[in-house]
């Protein structure tokens, strides 16, 4: 048989209530304690005196009703947000499939590569929405999990058959970013890793792509994406950002308030600093 908890224990009072006033105050406290446990269905009895105790009891009951109503609205909004992310992801999947259909009878290799690159950019964004609707709160995406999934997709999509590439992810598994931050970051990683997979390695060498995120509390984030491949061609200069991929990297970096530090002395390394 369950132990009966006294009003004193339940309402954290110093002593068991004795007078009528104390008992009524304890009953009201009991309801407030229920609200503190997010149980807004609790109500306290209102007497027939229309006195201060009845007024407080009525006020507490009405507050409970309002809180219950607000928590329901909040749940409805969360559901709506989840639905939106789901639909955005599905719509992106439709665009992805349309591009597939468009390229079905196409033989021009250059065209097919462009289509695939577009598809990868779409996938990089769709993945964020897919992860968002599966998370609580629908606001933050775990950066490590995202980069892990993104890079797996890219290897599947871009790597030359027979080529061996390893990834080294040095990212704090607790770091999460909001959508307006993770979309540009995702697209930047998408472009850089695509370039590495396409141009950095030969079939005979085992490639390594590293993605590292440094962050000290109160300081900048520093994202470094590097590979141990052949580096940039001699004719390449930073000003000569002729490809859409390179333009995107610089534009998206600007969007998150970062410059791009490019180093090609040993393979290639991109470093971005942002808040």
């Amino acid at each position: 048989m369950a132990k009966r908890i006294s009003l004193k224990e339940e309402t954290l009072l110093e002593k068991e209530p004795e007078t009528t006033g104390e008992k009524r105050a304890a009953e009201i406290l009991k309801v407030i304690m229920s609200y503190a446990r997010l149980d807004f269905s609790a109500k306290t009895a209102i007497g027939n005196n229309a006195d201060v105790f009845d007024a407080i009891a009525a006020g507490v009951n009405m507050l409970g009703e309002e809180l219950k109503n607000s928590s329901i609205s909040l749940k409805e909004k969360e559901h709506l947000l989840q639905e939106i992310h789901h639909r955005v992801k599905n719509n992106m999947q439709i665009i992805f499939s349309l591009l597939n259909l468009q390229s079905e009878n196409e033989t021009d290799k250059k065209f097919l590569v462009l289509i695939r690159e577009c598809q990868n950019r779409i996938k990089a964004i769709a993945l964020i929405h897919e992860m968002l609707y599966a998370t609580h709160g629908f606001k933050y995406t775990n950066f490590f999990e995202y980069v892990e999934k993104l890079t797996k997709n890219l290897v599947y999509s871009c790597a030359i058959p027979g080529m061996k590439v390893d990834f080294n992810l040095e990212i704090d598994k607790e770091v999460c970013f909001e959508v307006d931050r993770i979309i540009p970051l995702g697209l930047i990683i998408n472009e850089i890793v695509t370039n590495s997979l396409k141009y950095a390695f030969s079939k005979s060498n085992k490639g390594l792509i590293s993605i590292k995120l440094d962050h000290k509390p109160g300081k900048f984030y520093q994202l470094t994406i590097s590979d141990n491949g052949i580096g940039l061609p001699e004719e390449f200069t930073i000003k000569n950002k002729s490809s859409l991929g390179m333009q995107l990297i610089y534009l998206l970096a600007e969007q998150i308030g970062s410059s791009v530090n490019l180093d090609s002395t040993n393979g290639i390394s991109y470093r971005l600093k942002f808040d």
Partner: protein
Amino acid sequence: MEIPVETKVIETTAFQTWMGNDGIARTKVKPQSEITVKEAKENSDAVNSLHSETNFPLLVDARNIKSMTKDARDHFSMNNRASYVNAFAILIDSPLSKIIGNFFMGLNKPRVPARLFTEEEEALLWLRGYL
């Protein structure tokens, strides 16, 4: 709030409702009434049945009220429902009626002008502005 002699009073579960000779409708909460949406709807039907040609102000005597649920408060705010009432004044006096009145005004935002009063005469004076 006295009910004038020989006045047709509409009796519902929790209210007595009638039209005053001055063109201001009255509705009085019966002692110890616990108002749910059922009682609220009965009341608004009774109040609307007083309509003849023009919209009218309403004096609500809530001094005897015991409780009012959220659904009832939402209904009385007149949002999303038709009503012939163009303004209403609520009479309160006890701590209990004051709490309920202030909750209603603060959280339910009535669609038409509404005010709380502790004096009947002051309430009537204000309502006359809506005749």
